[in-house]
């Protein structure tokens, strides 16, 4: 069955199709000249070989049948392990994607190639490594042209980063609502006077917002004249490198001074309970060898790292703690782990949204994990968000056919803390109710109490 990827409707240069798990892209007649230019100049091959562009091989257009609609060229792409969106990326991932985009554009200019847009959705991650997925955004550079992607770059990369770096507010929730990023005019209105005094903020936020407003008042009278005036290549490179230098220095405004390397040394790995937990996860991962593991409540990625070391192919971690996600991303990056940590609130996961509510898929629709870790997680839903225990187990076991779920008892310090200032309405919450709910849906392969913590690990299998 050939199905059009519903997110690829915007570009008349081609469309993405999925057929039996394989990904194809059509290249229509209008995009042919630019495509053959980047292909024949060797740029395409170099980008693919260096891992900056998703693998793309030309195939016989007949493979798509009528679906190709007469497109002269069809390429097959390799699959990205997990499709993610910028509103799910933690700060360092968005920053890595922004730097990736700028570096790519700077390098491409030397080869006479320009990127036609600066959509953050065209960047995907393989582990912590960004990769461009849209070869149709590459075209021949025209002498004197402006960077048409600047506004989009600011809205989809720069402004969300500034929101956190200048104001200490994570971009994720706002970005998820607006989808197209954070408008410069709105960021400008939020910034207090003293934050506008840096010349970069003054240029790219204050001045740009002002110019947008005035250009708008004047209508299109100016547009033609500006276009004719043109921008030299040196100026274009100057702007790109200037932005790059600035973004490389951006850091979240709301984090302390500690370094994650210290965290790795000071964590509780030596602790007997922790060791038992790691051993259990390693044995699960060795036996199941999941191709894609979902780690709910991934924290700084310790257990994903254990699972990856023991045979899991790739891991996607979810957490709603920004600092934990930042640790996990940096860890994946420095240790070269195939782990992508993403922002997600399990009680309010990413929905189907965008055009016809099909452009950006919800987290459930992207579910193709074959292994699950939910460690010290269920009590956040059951006690923290009042989701009934039975529903929580049903949801968790539905995410992947095999996995490990940790039960956290009521007398655990974290649960006690959650209940400290509220009435305990969780009469039925206990290991027996947990076991019953799990047995109703899956076979319990193994269960193990973790030292004297009262916590218990359950390895389930419903396949």
């Amino acid at each position, binding site marked *: 069955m050939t199905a059009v990827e519903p997110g690829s409707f915007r570009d008349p240069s081609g469309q993405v199709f999925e057929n039996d798990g394989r990904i194809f892209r059509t290249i229509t007649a209008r995009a042919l000249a630019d495509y053959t230019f980047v292909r024949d100049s060797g740029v395409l091959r170099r980008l693919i070989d260096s891992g900056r562009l998703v693998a793309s091989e030309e195939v016989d257009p007949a493979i798509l049948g009528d679906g190709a609609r007469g497109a002269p060229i069809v390429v097959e792409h390799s699959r990205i392990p997990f499709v993610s969106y910028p509103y799910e990326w933690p700060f360092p991932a968005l920053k890595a994607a922004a730097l990736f985009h700028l570096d790519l554009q700077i390098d491409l200019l030397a080869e006479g190639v320009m990127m036609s847009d600066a959509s953050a959705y065209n960047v995907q991650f393989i582990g912590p490594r960004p990769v461009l997925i849209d070869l149709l955004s590459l075209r021949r550079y025209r002498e004197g042209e402006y960077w048409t992607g600047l506004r989009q770059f600011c809205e989809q990369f720069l402004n969300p980063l500034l929101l956190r770096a200048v104001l200490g507010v994570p971009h994720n929730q706002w970005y998820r609502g607006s989808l197209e990023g954070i408008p410069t005019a709105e960021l400008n209105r939020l910034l207090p006077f003293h934050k506008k005094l840096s010349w970069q903020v003054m240029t790219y936020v204050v001045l740009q917002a002002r110019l947008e407003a005035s250009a708008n008042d004047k209508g299109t009278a100016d547009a033609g004249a500006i276009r004719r005036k043109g921008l030299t290549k040196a100026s274009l490179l*100057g702007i790109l490198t200037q932005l790059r230098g600035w973004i*490389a220095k951006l850091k979240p405004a709301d984090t302390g001074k500690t370094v*994650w390397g210290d965290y790795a040394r000071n964590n509780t790995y030596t602790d007997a309970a922790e060791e038992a937990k790691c051993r259990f996860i390693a044995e699960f991962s060795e036996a199941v060898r999941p191709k894609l593991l979902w780690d709910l409540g991934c924290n700084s990625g310790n257990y994903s790292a254990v699972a990856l070391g023991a045979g899991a192919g790739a891991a996607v971690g979810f957490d709603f703690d920004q600092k934990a996600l930042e640790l996990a991303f940096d860890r994946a990056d420095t240790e070269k782990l195939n782990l992508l940590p993403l922002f997600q609130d399990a009680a309010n996961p990413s929905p189907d949204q965008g055009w016809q509510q099909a452009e950006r898929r919800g987290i459930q629709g992207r579910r193709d994990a074959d292994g699950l870790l939910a460690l010290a997680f269920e009590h956040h839903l059951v006690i923290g968000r009042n989701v009934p225990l039975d529903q929580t187990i049903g949801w968790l076991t539905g995410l992947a056919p095999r996995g490990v779920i940790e039960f956290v008892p009521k007398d655990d310090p974290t649960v006690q803390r959650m209940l400290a200032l509220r009435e305990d309405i969780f009469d039925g919450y206990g290991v027996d109710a947990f076991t019953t709910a799990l047995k109703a849906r899956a076979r319990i392969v193994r269960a193990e109490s973790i030292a004297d913590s009262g916590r218990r690990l359950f390895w389930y299998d419903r396949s």
Partner: protein
Amino acid sequence: MNRIYMALLAVPALLLFSTQNAYAYLDPGTGSMLLQGLIGGIAGGMFAIRLYLSKLKSRFGRAPASSVSTRDGEQDPTDKAR
């Protein structure tokens, strides 16, 4: 004297108090093009100087200034109880 102050203040004031506009969704990106026209000259000049300096350095036997592709991904993480 006051007049000069007022004139000097007027420029940033104009920038800081941007007007409301009702048709932002119609704008084809003219604002960001105008911005490039304004800053392009300076940015281009700075780029040329940096390029010249890195060439100069490499001529005197030093490795060229770390290229644009080096990553600065350091964050400031903190511990978190699980």
